[in-house]
């Protein structure tokens, strides 16, 4: 059964690479933010998967909860600053 989880983990990492492409390439700053959000959602899921493979879900769920909350704070801050900057430039 471990090979199945290895497959899941590898797939999630490859998907993170796809979002990374959007972060690197994305024409506007908002595309980059969206890509970053996609990566962090994957990271949350990935943490729980890692926890399941290690049989220590209790430990890893704590970090993924923290990730989810931090992600909110970071994304709101970024969106707010981008919004201010956009208004300045018009």
């Amino acid at each position, binding site marked *: 059964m471990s090979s199945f989880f290895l497959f899941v983990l590898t797939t999630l990492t490859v998907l993170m690479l796809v979002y990374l492409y959007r972060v690197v390439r994305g024409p*506007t700053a908002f595309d980059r933010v969206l890509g970053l*959000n996609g990566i962090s959602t994957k990271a949350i899921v990935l943490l729980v998967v890692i926890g399941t493979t290690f049989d220590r*879900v209790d430990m890893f769920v704590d970090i993924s909860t923290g990730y989810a*909350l931090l992600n909110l704070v970071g994304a709101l801050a970024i969106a707010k600053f981008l919004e201010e900057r956009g*208004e300045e*430039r018009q």
Partner: protein
Amino acid sequence: MSWLGIALIVIGLFFLVVGSIGMLRLPDVFSRAHALSVTDSLGALFVLLGLAVYEGFNTNFLRIIVVLGLIYLLNPVIAHATVRAAYRSGLRPGKGDDQ
């Protein structure tokens, strides 16, 4: 029970892959936000639900459900904040601003 979990995880992976393809193919910020919402709502839901079922019904099940609830409460806020910032800074959908 574990087979049900694995089936749910595979369904979730499908939606995650679809979300990534959408992230690559769709033309502008607003449409890409839709792809992200497919990933968040359905992909994360099925994968986490599958993991919870795979874990069996104990406290770990409840914890994974808590993470799921957080994703459901917080990710729409993030998507909305990003899209609103894009809207307010002058981007408009429809023309495909792929410079």
